[in-house]
């Protein structure tokens, strides 16, 4: 958790917002994934890693497909933990967050999940199918691992308050009604959600679902504390070379600066 908090503080100090790129564990292959994470770590302030699941109901077609391919490659939570354990031997500073559906946590047991996560240096988890009403299932067991709650454009002020109260690193703001996937514009409702959170709390906010371009990110600087880009990165990994991925990440990263 501390690594995440530090990342937001450092970005603020540098007059930037946090850049949070996403990639899928085991995609496009287990070996290539490790190489891609190394590239992504050069630009990401925090790196979000999706753990593949057979039924990703919050995801659009791009991440669904990546998740299916990753499962076929033999990727699973156990291997993701192994990967992180090795990764931490060389990189003790990049904040790593896992995005995974609740059944994967439930399967190994919530206590066991957080015990391993803490031991190997996982900083946070995003569980897209676990709303605040179900927080009792996980909250008491989290220890130093941050649970990053999601808030959506449909979240009422009453529930937003509960989400803010349980948040300790940042809030993942879902900018649209819908599933993950690139969209052309940043929704007004998304901006309104950020404002509603800012009105009641100083907790950092990061906007996700639908972001893909440097123009979108530039328009969010000064409004939100972080931006999450997922599907578009997966699309580029599928279609393009490492150097093109690097150019893309570099562009997005530079768009996060206030200067």
């Amino acid at each position, binding site marked *: 958790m501390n690594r995440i908090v530090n990342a937001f503080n450092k970005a603020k100090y540098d007059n930037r917002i946090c850049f949070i790129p996403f990639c899928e564990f085991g995609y496009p292959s287990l070996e290539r994934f490790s190489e891609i994470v190394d590239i992504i770590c050069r630009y990401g302030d925090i790196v979000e890693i999706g753990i593949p*699941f*057979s*039924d*990703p*109901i*919050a995801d*659009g077609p791009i991440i*669904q497909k990546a998740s*299916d391919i990753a*499962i076929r490659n033999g990727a*699973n*939570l*156990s291997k993701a933990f192994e990967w992180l354990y090795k990764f931490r031997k060389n990189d003790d500073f990049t904040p790593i967050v896992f995005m995974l559906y*609740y*059944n*994967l946590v*439930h*399967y*190994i047991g919530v206590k066991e999940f957080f015990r391993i996560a803490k031991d190997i240096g996982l900083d946070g988890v995003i569980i*897209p*199918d*676990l*709303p605040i*009403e*179900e927080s009792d299932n996980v909250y008491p067991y989290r220890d130093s691992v941050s649970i990053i*709650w*999601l*808030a*959506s*454009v*449909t*979240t*009422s002020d009453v*529930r937003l308050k509960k989400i803010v109260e349980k948040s300790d690193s940042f809030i993942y703001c*879902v900018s649209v*009604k*819908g*599933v993950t996937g690139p969209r052309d514009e940043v929704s007004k409702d998304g901006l309104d959600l950020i404002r509603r959170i800012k009105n009641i709390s100083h907790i950092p906010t990061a906007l996700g679902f639908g972001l893909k371009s440097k123009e979108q990110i530039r328009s969010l600087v000064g409004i939100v504390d972080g931006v999450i880009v997922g599907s578009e990165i997966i699309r580029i990994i599928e279609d393009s070379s490492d150097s093109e991925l690097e150019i893309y990440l570099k562009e997005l990263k530079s768009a996060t600066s206030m200067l």
Partner: protein
Amino acid sequence: MYNLPDGRGYFGEYGGRFVPETLMEPLLQLEEAYNKVKDDEDFWQSFNKLLRDYVGRPTPLYYANRLSERLGFKVYLKREDLCHTGAHKINNCIGQALLAKRMGKSRIIAETGAGQHGVATATVASLLGLRCTIYMGEEDMIRQKMNVFRMKLLGAEVIPVSSGNRTLKEAINSALRDWVTNIDDTHYLIGSVIGPHPYPMMVRDFQSVIGREAKRQILDIEKKLPDYIVACVGGGSNSIGIFYPFLEDDVKLIGVEGGGLGLETKKHAASISNSQIGVLHGCRMYLMQEEWGNIMNTYSISAGLDYPGVGPEHSYLKDIGRVRYEYATDDVALKGFEELSKSEGIIPALESAHAVGYLFVSDIPKGSIVIVNLSGRGDKDLDIVMREMKYE
């Protein structure tokens, strides 16, 4: 007194609301709307009127004379196969569609496995003037092509789902993704006692008309309650519908899951008999999984039972020992299918044939009184049975 689910939508440790954040507000609105109509006489009057005039309720409780003679105990069939559209599914569709209208929704979406729930939803949509989209696995569309045509004829759009096993589980994933995108004008009409709270409660309430009628009817005929009630269990809507009004009575309740090619082959859909617990489609329940928590691809000859989970209330009733859960393999179901057709002139749905077939392998004592919920009729399954039984 049995009074579940609790305020958070739990039946013991099963149920809950495990959904993306965007769906929480529509679920809370749905719960509120449903709680409001619970005591609204107008609502139940419209519901009951449609059940009577449109669905054809009450459905008969029929004494199966020749079948009883063969088995040595008295078998009564609750004839849900005589409902309009050929299965019990429509009871719940009428209830939810009336509620959706009250909530000002103009579009309903649904998943379907065998196609019975899709047909019932499309039917009710056309009855009430709602737009309708049905998600159906590509594999199921091949297995049940007549039902696909029926839905289209009724004015619904049928969207093929090509991910995963291309069956019911994937159709629900797609319907949930549609709902999260279109929550303003759309109601998701879930067809079974699964999904996030309030669905398992609401669908049970709408389906429990089956058990209330059956209770009245058996008391009329036999002047006492039955010894056993037997029903097939996929997600579990027809079974909970007939069990629920008997939960506090001295009646043995037996749910029959889809045993596929046998439990040892792993090609089956008997979630409770399989004993694993997990979370999918919004609720915690008995759920068939692979190592590390991916959901297992299930198999049953009957598309309507081909689902890896079972409703949270069933999961609870299993744990407290109130309902006994057994399974019938494809072969046992086919025997039930044939026996009922030949001895009573009633061709059952393959789902219901699991309950009928179970009677032939059960330990039900001679002389007992047994009610079987005949949840649907078999027209939709003739192709499959023809192939399986090598009829010419």
